[in-house]
């Protein structure tokens, strides 16, 4: 008999007042009992709407049925068929606009907590003394992967399992991409990412950090001189955008990437860290996505007294995951909707002292169907602040395009690929944010998988 409670089984989490001052994980995950209870809310519908909402088509009702039965290993195997990063995706996927959005239970009440269950299954698996992964027998063929974000890690893993000799080249000193430099510890503990990387190493994948491809080696050199038969580009969309308003270069204005990199990658929040970060009191974060939420909540944890999210549309349009918005509010972040900064003002030493803002109203829908924000005349006001964080989007870094002849991109920088991840250069594949622009972990992972399949076919056909 299904559990007919209209509410999701609550997931334990740290008290908002306490967690707003620490970097420990906010949500603590289900126990086995809670997971089974939540799993039994699934009606196991015949037409499986949730599966079509999942970008990688995890067989959701099947894994949930196993959770309900208490066979968590079987559940893990089902998820693994489609996903390489369940512990990550269970934490960071925007479930409310994917699988859970289509859940029949969501029509009257909460949808089944699919993300929470995925997370439980993955954590349960990871907590067991792992079966040692064995390096598959090598087929002697070399593939290079550029970038160690979710797309690159997935592509590398899938190819390694097929016996390819895979080397991942990462520009930073640590592998993981946005998962290590962007998404904060309190939302995605770095030990989880490290575990995924360690698994790849166990499969024989080589990870070369400090390798900025396009500078130290070009794609042509990788293929012509180092014997890589194919290359996957998973270099992400790391180039931060600014608003081009006056005062944006004042001290105390950060891109979200810089603020988060200092905090997450360089651990600037720790007492003895050598990398500095501003300990601001009043922080304005401009933007409404996950990146903005992460920056705002990090600023609180570093010690800010007041943190505002400033977004030019209304709360309904916030692109961030619902859970992050909810958590941010609980922690005391203030949401200033329908507001846009027009100028940042500095003191005599060029440190931020205030933001001049204007109110917005929503007009006609634009081409994308979202209502266009328009300024309300005469609505300008000043807001005191000593730090401003711009979280208004990123685009792909032009470095690889500019050093790879024949690699075509869109005007805005996204690498052009076909449905199998093939670029305009033979033997060169791409996926993730480098192709789509800033998107999601699950999409990046899915494209890494697609490309791995295509690379395998490409090399096998070449061998004939």
């Amino acid at each position, binding site marked *: 008999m299904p559990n007919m409670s209209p509410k999701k089984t609550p997931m334990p989490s740290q008290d908002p007042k306490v967690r707003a001052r620490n970097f420990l994980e906010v949500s603590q995950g289900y126990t086995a009992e809670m997971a089974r209870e939540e799993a039994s809310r699934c009606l196991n519908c015949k037409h499986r709407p949730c599966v079509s909402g999942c970008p990688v088509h995890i067989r959701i009702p099947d894994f949930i049925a196993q959770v309900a039965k208490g066979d968590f290993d079987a559940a893990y195997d089902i998820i693994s068929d489609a996903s390489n990063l369940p512990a990550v995706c269970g934490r960071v996927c925007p479930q409310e606009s994917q699988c859970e959005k289509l859940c029949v239970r969501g029509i009257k009440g909460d949808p089944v907590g699919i993300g929470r269950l995925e997370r439980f299954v993955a954590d349960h698996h990871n907590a067991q003394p792992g079966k040692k992964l064995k390096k598959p027998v090598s087929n002697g063929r070399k593939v290079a992967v550029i970038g160690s974000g979710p797309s690159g890690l997935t592509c590398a893993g899938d190819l390694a399992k097929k016996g390819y000799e895979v080397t991942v080249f990462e520009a*930073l*000193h640590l592998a993981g991409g946005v998962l290590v430099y962007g998404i904060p510890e309190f939302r995605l503990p770095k030990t989880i990412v490290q575990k995924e990387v360690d698994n790849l190493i166990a499969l024989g994948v080589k990870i070369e950090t400090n390798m900025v491809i396009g500078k*130290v080696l070009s794609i042509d050199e990788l293929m012509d001189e180092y014997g890589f038969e194919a290359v996957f580009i998973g270099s992400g969309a790391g180039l*931060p955008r600014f608003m081009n308003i006056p005062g944006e270069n004042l001290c105390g204005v950060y891109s979200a990437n810089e603020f988060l990199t200092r905090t997450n990658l360089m651990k600037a929040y720790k007492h003895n860290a050598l990398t*500095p970060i501003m300990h601001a009191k009043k922080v304005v974060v401009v933007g409404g996505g996950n990146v903005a939420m992460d920056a705002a909540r990090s600023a609180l944890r570093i010690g800010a007294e007041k943190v505002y999210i400033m977004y030019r549309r209304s709360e309904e349009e916030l692109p961030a995951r619902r859970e992050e918005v909810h958590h941010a509010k609980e922690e005391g972040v203030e949401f200033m909707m329908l507001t846009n900064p027009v100028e940042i003002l500095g003191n005599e030493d060029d440190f931020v002292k205030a933001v001049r803002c204007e109110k917005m109203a929503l007009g006609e829908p634009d081409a994308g169907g979202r209502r266009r924000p328009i300024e309300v005349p005469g609505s300008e006001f000043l807001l005191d602040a000593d730090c401003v964080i711009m979280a208004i989007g990123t685009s792909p870094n032009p470095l690889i395009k500019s050093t790879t002849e024949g690699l075509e991109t869109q005007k805005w920088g996204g690498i052009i690929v076909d449905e199998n991840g093939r670029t305009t250069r033979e033997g060169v594949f791409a996926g993730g944010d480098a192709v789509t622009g800033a998107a999601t972990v699950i999409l990046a992972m899915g494209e890494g998988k697609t490309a791995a399949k295509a690379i395998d076919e490409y090399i096998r056909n070449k061998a004939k």
Partner: protein
Amino acid sequence: MYKITEKRPLTRNITLMRIEAPLVAKKAQPGQFVILRATKDGERIPLTISGTDTDRGTVCIIFQIVGATTRQLNTLEEGDCLADFAGPLGKPTELDGLKKVCVVGGGVGCAIAMPIAQKLHDMGCEVHSIVGFRNKDFLILEDEFKACSDKYIIMTDDGSYGEKGVVTAPLKALIESGERYDMVIAIGPLLMMKFVVETTRPFEIPTTVSMNPIMIDGTGMCGGCRLTVGGETKFACVDGPDFDGFKVDFDEAMKRTAMYRKFERHAYEAACNLLNKEVE
């Protein structure tokens, strides 16, 4: 990985190191830099590539001990390894077609200027070098500069070596005496570069400066290194570090560089206490 094959003090607070990094050595060109971490958990700092030895696969860096990280780096010895060493980053200095150039270096900036002077010399360009230091004790790379310069002028603040005064004095004198430079390349403290630019501007001599804002990734990912150049925002790590000196907003750059001064002083003192080894 990234083994220190040689370490040599050039002055009391400037050290030269050669680091094993064959791939970087193979690609590096004058004007490019690396980002390194001395130890795990350390800070990422940029240092210019002062030279390479492709046979040995080593990269030469010359750094001044100014704060916590350079101090930490200076505690490493020959045979030790750096945790991280990524490069070559930034664009190489554009030298094509130059026939006569005045290279102006200030302090540790001379370490960055020297490979440029060398390359120009190797290209057959006439090189005049003007270098400035606080006093005789801070002088570096005298022989190296002499070897590649057709004219070499040393200035010290106190006159303890070479001429007394600032680098812009001989620069102005040379230009006024009729020396026709295709380009002036200035590398040193921001204030020095600002004054070099003010010196060359009336003569309309193209002037390249090498900017050194605070960096983290060095790949264009954070925007922390941004500068205003010709009214536009540029990222020094990918668009530079060299820029047209006439267009750079030096005042803004100076303020941005000072953003973490309080923190840095604190970290430096902490490092000093920890290491308990006198440097300055």
